Each structure stands twice: as structure tokens, then as C-alpha cells.
């Protein structure tokens, strides 16, 4: 029996309330499945479980403030490991056993192989599950395993109501966005950052004329719904540069810096009513411009409307903040622990710029870096900024 504990979702999160269970006792879960909704200082966050197994018991009461680390649920990860060889499990689970096996062996194989069958291949299991076409479609869309559901339709068939019933049973009233609580949480994190992290700052002005010109052409070829925002170019250039400079991408904990294998780029999103979250875009360095644009749109929507996942709040390895059109000329960021750097982009302003020996009025942005002096120094920081500037000067290669 394994315990599912209340995770910490940020540098200074101390407690949270479970407001809704998305699974019921007896449900099978896989690593990455959403299992509960937590109410935190950052609003309602969907929490994933990172174990495989069956929910044995939902321990945490709803709507009660619990400390980080409290046991939320007990998970039966099973004496039987998920089949190492899907082929072996599938063979073991074959219900249409040849007649030779229909002796006393059959009852044993069917009971023992049932969990293995469900693990080994949802394709195999779901073809044996009686479910309405609508339930099947909804389950596929939501990534729910039909075999894990109890059916209330004719002959025990799973119908759409059974998918909704999974989460509906346990639900508490949501408090909604609490600006004061969020401000307090941000305050605690920022104070800790300034106390513990020796910041150093560098900045560089970048002419965005080639990038914006390229963007205009690229957008002309795209439908309105697919248009790229300038922010995506900044994101992509930053992600690629950070992949090349590992001392700015990772976590500093217990007096040790661990560089991260991927650039999980936190993007600072201002919330209406005050407040800030910086959920991560996973493996940002591997996503092309369109993928980044889609990820950005999705994150902003969920940050403002609910539905951010716990893993998105905790997995950022570096953060980028862009002040946008009405922002100041430059931003001097405060690093979000346990990260070791934060990049900032000020407002894009038209400024005099020297190009080809002449002065012209061109769009210019001030790119700034705040970095942890325990991990990196100004020389590396300068090279990082120059790398970003170079990439932005050649937008077609982004």
C-alpha cells in the first residue's frame, strides 16, 4: 500500500484544501492522471498522481486545510507489477482460452490476469467493455479507462453518466480566487528569494526589427486563429539559448545546483484582479513556434479560468517574464526559488538605433537577466544574453 501525499506546489506553500476528488475508491489510476482539485493560494489547481495502481481509500476529508505532506489517499500499487512484457500479459489474459485450458486452470487465470489485462493494453480491455458510443468517445477524449468504470446502463454497460459520476460524488464548495491569499504567498516567495539568492543583473538591448518583419510575413500566411504573437519568438529564442547554457536552467536545493535535462520554461501570467502565476511549458526548447503558441494560449486560458495542473506549477526550471506593451522599459526580475535565473523582456519601444552606420527609428526591447551568483557569473550571463539576441536577429532559424 502506497501513500499519496499532499504535494507542495510552490516555494512557500504550506497547506491546501482538497475541494474535489476526481477519482473514486476502486478506480484504477496511471501515472499522470488527475486525481483531485486543490484549493491553494494560487487558486484551484488540478493535482496529478505519479503512481500506477488502484485507489484503495480516499483519506483526506474535503474542504479541510491540510499541511503539505498530509496523506490524501492510499493507493494499492498491487502485488502484481504492471506487466513488464505486454505480450506476456495479453497472452495470459486471453479470455478465449483454447479448450485445453478450460480445466481448473481457467478460474485462476481469469482472476489473476484481470488487473494485468487492464494494465497491459487499454485497447484490449476496452474492446471487451460494454459501453455506449457516447461513453466510449468521451472516455477516449478525457483519457479515462472504461474498464475502471462501473456501468449503470443495460447489462452493466458504461454510459456517459458513469463518466460524470466519477468525479461528481465528492465535491466541496470552491472559494474562488482569493487575491489577498495569493498576494501573501507571492510575498513569502519573493522575500525568501531576496533573502537567500545573491542576485546579479545584466541587460542588453535587442533590435527586434528583423524579428517583427519576419513575424508579419509568417502571420500573413497563417489563419487568424494560428497567428503567432511576438512573445512566442522571445520564448523560443530564450528556450533555445537556455538549452545551450545549463547553468541558468535547473534547481538549487540543499546547497547544490542540479541542472535540468529539459528547459521547462515558466511563463509569468498576470491574473485579472491582481496576482501572478508562472506555470511551466514543458520541454520548451523542443517545441516549434506553432506548438509554443498553442501551449501559451492554453496556459493563459487555464491560468485565468482554472485547470492548471500541479506539475505545471512546480516543474519550471527557469522563468521568463515579459511586461508586454504597457510595461516599463526594463524589468529586473526576482528569481523564483528553487530556480537560479529569470529572464525579463521590457516593452517593445521605438527607439533610435544604429544600423549599418546610420540612425533609424526601430523597435527595441530591453532584455534583462537576473541570475543566482552561487551558480553562474556575469561572463556566462553575458554570453546567454548575446545568444538570445543573435537568435532574435535571425528569426527564420527559430
Amino acid at each position: 500500500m502506497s501513500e499519496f501525499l499532499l504535494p507542495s506546489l510552490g516555494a512557500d506553500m504550506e497547506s491546501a484544501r482538497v475541494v474535489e476528488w476526481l477519482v473514486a475508491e476502486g478506480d484504477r489510476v496511471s501515472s499522470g492522471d488527475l486525481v483531485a482539485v486543490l484549493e491553494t493560494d494560487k487558486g484551484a489547481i488540478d493535482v496529478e498522481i505519479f503512481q500506477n495502481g488502484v485507489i484503495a481509500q480516499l483519506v483526506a476529508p474535503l474542504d479541510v486545510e491540510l499541511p503539505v505532506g498530509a496523506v490524501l489517499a492510499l493507493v494499492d500499487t498491487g502485488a502484481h507489477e504492471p506487466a513488464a512484457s505486454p505480450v506476456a500479459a495479453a497472452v495470459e489474459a486471453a479470455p478465449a482460452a483454447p479448450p485445453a485450458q478450460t480445466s481448473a486452470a481457467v478460474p485462476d487465470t481469469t482472476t489473476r490476469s484481470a488487473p494485468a489485462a487492464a494494465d497491459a493494453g487499454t485497447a484490449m480491455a476496452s474492446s471487451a467493455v460494454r459501453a455506449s458510443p457516447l461513453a466510449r468517445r468521451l472516455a477516449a477524449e478525457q483519457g479515462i479507462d472504461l474498464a475502471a468504470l462501473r456501468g449503470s446502463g443495460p447489462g452493466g454497460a458504461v454510459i456517459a453518466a458513469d463518466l460524470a459520476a466519477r468525479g461528481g460524488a465528492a465535491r466541496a464548495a470552491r472559494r474562488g480566487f482569493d487575491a489577498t491569499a495569493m498576494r501573501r504567498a507571492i510575498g513569502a516567495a519573493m522575500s525568501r528569494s531576496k533573502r537567500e539568492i545573491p542576485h546579479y543583473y545584466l541587460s542588453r538591448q535587442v533590435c527586434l526589427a528583423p524579428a517583427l518583419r519576419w513575424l508579419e510575413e509568417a502571420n500573413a500566411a497563417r489563419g487568424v486563429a494560428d497567428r503567432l504573437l511576438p512573445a512566442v519568438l522571445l520564448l523560443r529564442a530564450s528556450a533555445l539559448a537556455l538549452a545551450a547554457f545549463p547553468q541558468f536552467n535547473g534547481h538549487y536545493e540543499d546547497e547544490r545546483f542540479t541542472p535540468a535535462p529539459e528547459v521547462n520554461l515558466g511563463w509569468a501570467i498576470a491574473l485579472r484582479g491582481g496576482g501572478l502565476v508562472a506555470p511551466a511549458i514543458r520541454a520548451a526548447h523542443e517545441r516549434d513556434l506553432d506548438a509554443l503558441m498553442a501551449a501559451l494560449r492554453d496556459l493563459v486560458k487555464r491560468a485565468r479560468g482554472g485547470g492548471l495542473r500541479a506539475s505545471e506549477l512546480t516543474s519550471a526550471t527557469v522563468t521568463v517574464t515579459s511586461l508586454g506593451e504597457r510595461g516599463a522599459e526594463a524589468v529586473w526580475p526576482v528569481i523564483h526559488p528553487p530556480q537560479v535565473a529569470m529572464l525579463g523582456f521590457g516593452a517593445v519601444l521605438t527607439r533610435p538605433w544604429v544600423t549599418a552606420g546610420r540612425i533609424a527609428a526601430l523597435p527595441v526591447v530591453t532584455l534583462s537577466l537576473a541570475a543566482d551568483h552561487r551558480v553562474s557569473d556575469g561572463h556566462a550571463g553575458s554570453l546567454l544574453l548575446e545568444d538570445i539576441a543573435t537568435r532574435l536577429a535571425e528569426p527564420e532559424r527559430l
Partner: protein
Amino acid sequence: MAETLTYREACRAAIREAIEADPRVFLMGEDVGRYGGCYAVTKGLAEELGEARIRDTPLSESAFVGAGIGAALAGMRPIVEVMTVNFSLLALDQIVNNAATLAHMSGGQFAVPLVIRMATGAGKQLAAQHSHSLEGWYAHVPGLRILAPATVEDARYMLAAALADPNPVLLFEHVMLYNASGELDPAVTTVDIAQAKTRRPGRDVTLVTYGGSLPKTLAAAEQLAADGIEAEVIDLRVLRPLDLATLAASVARTHRCVIVDEGWKTGSLSAEIAASLVETVFFELDAPIARVCAAEVPIPYAAHLEQAALPQPATIVAAARDLVRPAS
């Protein structure tokens, strides 16, 4: 000021208006003139409009339907009244092999702008040979448009649209509807003969029906509402071509469907609708499609047996409830 009249009176008014408006229009059939019509639809019209426009025919469906086809080919706009769909079997060859095909077989050189009105359905203890609902059979035949007015408004205005159609139209009037009365909306002066109509909106289950089964289906919807189930009732109005778009849109919202059809279940119009819905909205279905049809027996004479053999509000309610709250 909304006019209240019976379905029968609406049919009569439609015939009168059509004959008065167009010199090519006339009506012929058995006992339509002096007798005033077997169901009194044409009562008084022969006196009013003259025997040249309301013509009594010999007792031979094949002959007078054929004559109607001939008149239509020659440029008239005849309304042929076949007393009931049961007797139309004697004119099946004329309808299916002549009326429905001449436009095609002549490469478009000939058109058959013929309207055939027929009474249909059971409920008057007319027993096995006189209680058929064969609209579904006719809906099987390309070249025919099949109409089933179920409301006073449709009875009043579908005829004009049918006469305007350059191809053969069969118009079925359910015998149990003739005495039904309803209000005519003065703002409505024409209706289409292409679309189904949602008679009652709902969100839990779609009830599809036509003709004489509409009042029963609406009654069933009221009973279901009392039980917390909101049923959407759709009146097909046109049985060929079927307005599948309206049906599919409704089932896509409710995810459940019951089809109420007074014909026998086997090989019926309800089977065609179910198959078409599976083809179009399979991935929206949360339950099998249910059908409430006549029992697989020749329609009985005895009143209690006849009622037991036909769709009733209770059986429609049971079918709908089974879909919404399945007993596992």
C-alpha cells in the same frame, strides 16, 4: 384573431382554396361528390364548386389513379382521393410504376404533377384489411414525395405546397385526426413540405414520430415531464425525403432516441430512421435507439385488442424511460 377548426375542416378549406385559385385543379375519387366523402372531407364541395371540379369515380382505384396520372401528364393539377391507403394497393402499379417513374423514364420530357390524398391508420375498429399504415412502404420509392400532416396547420396548408410540386406527392391523413381541432395562426399562410418540426423542445431524449402518433407522443412527453424527463418531440411531417438534419441535430443533443411509428416494426420507416441516425450520429448515442410500433399482427377488430396492438402513450413513456434510466 386565430381561427379554430377541425382537421377535417382544414382539409376541406385547403381543397376549396386550391380549386378556386387554379382552373387546372380538380378533385376526383370514390364518393367524394354526392356523398361528400367517406370521411366527410368534401362535404358540400360538389354543390359549391360543381361536379366538374369534384368528380365521383367508378370503384376502381387502378382506373382513376391512372386517369389522374393521365390528367397530370396532360397539364391538369388533379387531386386524386383514394379512400384509404388500404385501397391504394389496387393502384400500386399505377403509383409505383407510372406516377413515380414517368419523369425518369421520359428523360424529363414528362412530368406528373399529381397529388394523391389518402386516409390512413387504425383505431376505428375497421379490422385487418382496413387499418394499415403503409406510408413507410411508399416512402421507399424514389420519385414520390410523402407527406403526413399531423396538425391542423399542416392539414390546411400542405395541400397547396403539394400542388405546386411538379412531381407526384402522396398526402396521408390519419383517420383518428379528422375530428381533432386546433387553432390556425393567422400569420402563417404557407408551410414547407421539406422539413421536420420540433413540436416540443427537450434535453433528455428525442421522440420522433409522424401523423396520427403525434398526439400520443406529445401526451407521453407530458407524462415523462412529470417524472423529470424532458423529451423533445419531433414531427417528421415529410416521410420522403426525410429531414435527417433536424433529427441528427436533436439526437446529437439528447443522445437518446425513440421512434414512434404506427406501421409494423419489421422493415418499417422507423427502421430506416434508426439506421440513418446510426450512420450520422453514432458517436453521440448513449443508448440504443428504441422503436415503438404496431404489434406484428394483422390489426385486430376487437377494440381492446386493437388498442393493445397500436403504439400508446404508456408504451412510449416506458420506452423513453428505459433509455434515460436504464434498468441494469
